């Protein structure tokens, strides 16, 4: 092999090899930043869902930093539990950026959410209807679908979950076969126009509130699933008994729910 040919081969190797190595370094940065963005989004989503106890975006920033990258943007969607991150890293060839998002496979309640009206109130069941009008004061029985999801009628704080402490009502003393054990309910306090209002769903399926990720002290949004209809308490069949009251009680409510929820 002559000297010019050998030199040409060496030159060609350098001409081809250097860009390939440079491109590989750039590709490595892309892999690194993509992995960091994924891990940061997962961390933020886990923190948002309560799986991890940390501020979602602060945790995402820690994850990105540990991988030698920088968290440039972090956004949360609390209703769906989705976290979105933008992570960057500086390379000799410029800034490399990657975006990622993560969310629970199904948000609590399977992604269902009650429609919220212009006044901020939501019909508290998946079916807009009642199976019984006013009784025991302004209480109503809500129509429900097979899934039986019940929603928070307005934004508020959950103040009670589980048995309500009430005994067997007169109706069940007269008809003992209707008694299904203690009534389980979920009560929410709403601050509306400067006044505290209390809503309650009754006869709910025991444990359904917890299975939806809701417990006492939680802040809930209008239309957020908070329970499933059941047959706890005194009932001749599956239904839900809904109340709206100025008092933190579920008996003999004093507020007309239709004034807030609109007509069925």
């Amino acid at each position, binding site marked *: 092999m002559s000297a010019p040919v050998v030199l040409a081969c060496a030159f060609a190797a350098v001409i081809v090899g250097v860009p390939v190595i440079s491109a590989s370094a750039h590709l*490595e940065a892309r892999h690194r930043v993509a992995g*960091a963005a994924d*891990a940061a989004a997962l961390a933020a989503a886990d923190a948002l869902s309560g799986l991890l106890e940390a501020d979602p975006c602060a945790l995402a920033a820690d994850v990105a930093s*540990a991988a030698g990258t920088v968290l440039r943007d972090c956004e949360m969607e609390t209703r769906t539990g989705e976290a979105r991150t933008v992570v960057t890293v500086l390379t000799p060839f410029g800034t490399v950026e990657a975006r990622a998002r993560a969310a629970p496979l199904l948000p609590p309640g399977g992604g269902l959410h009650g429609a919220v009206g212009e006044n901020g109130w939501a019909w508290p069941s998946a079916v807009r209807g009642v199976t019984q009008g006013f009784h025991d004061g302004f209480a109503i029985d809500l129509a429900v679908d097979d899934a039986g999801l019940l929603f928070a009628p307005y934004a508020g704080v959950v103040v009670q979950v589980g048995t309500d402490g009430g005994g067997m009502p007169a109706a069940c003393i007269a008809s003992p076969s209707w008694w299904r054990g203690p009534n389980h309910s979920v009560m929410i306090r709403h601050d509306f126009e400067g006044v505290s209002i209390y809503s309650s769903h009754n006869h709910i399926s025991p444990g359904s509130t917890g299975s939806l990720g809701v417990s006492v002290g939680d802040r809930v949004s209008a239309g957020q699933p908070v329970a499933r209809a059941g047959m706890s308490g005194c009932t001749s069949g599956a239904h839900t008994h809904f109340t709206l009251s100025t008092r933190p009680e579920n008996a003999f409510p004093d507020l007309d729910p239709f004034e807030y929820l609109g007509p069925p």
Partner: protein
Amino acid sequence: MLPVVLVVLGLVLGGVALAAHRITLVSAASDAARLQARGDSAEERLAVLGPGVEAEWREEGSLLCVDLNATPGGGLLAALSVRGTGCAARNDLGGVP
């Protein structure tokens, strides 16, 4: 002249091999950290890398990190080590394997 050409070719090919190996390790480290930190096993993901790759796990606060170290080849490359690091937030199920 020929030895010089061989050295140049060797450096170029070695550089490409190192870069490719680093990409593999960085990608695997990210995946492994995410899996292990969230309670899944990273064993299967790391097994794909074959022998010669050492995984060093460590906890950094609420994070779980893994350093993957490997020697990309024989000869002169055996003197070099390539590393890829991945970290992820650790939940109650995750931890150092």
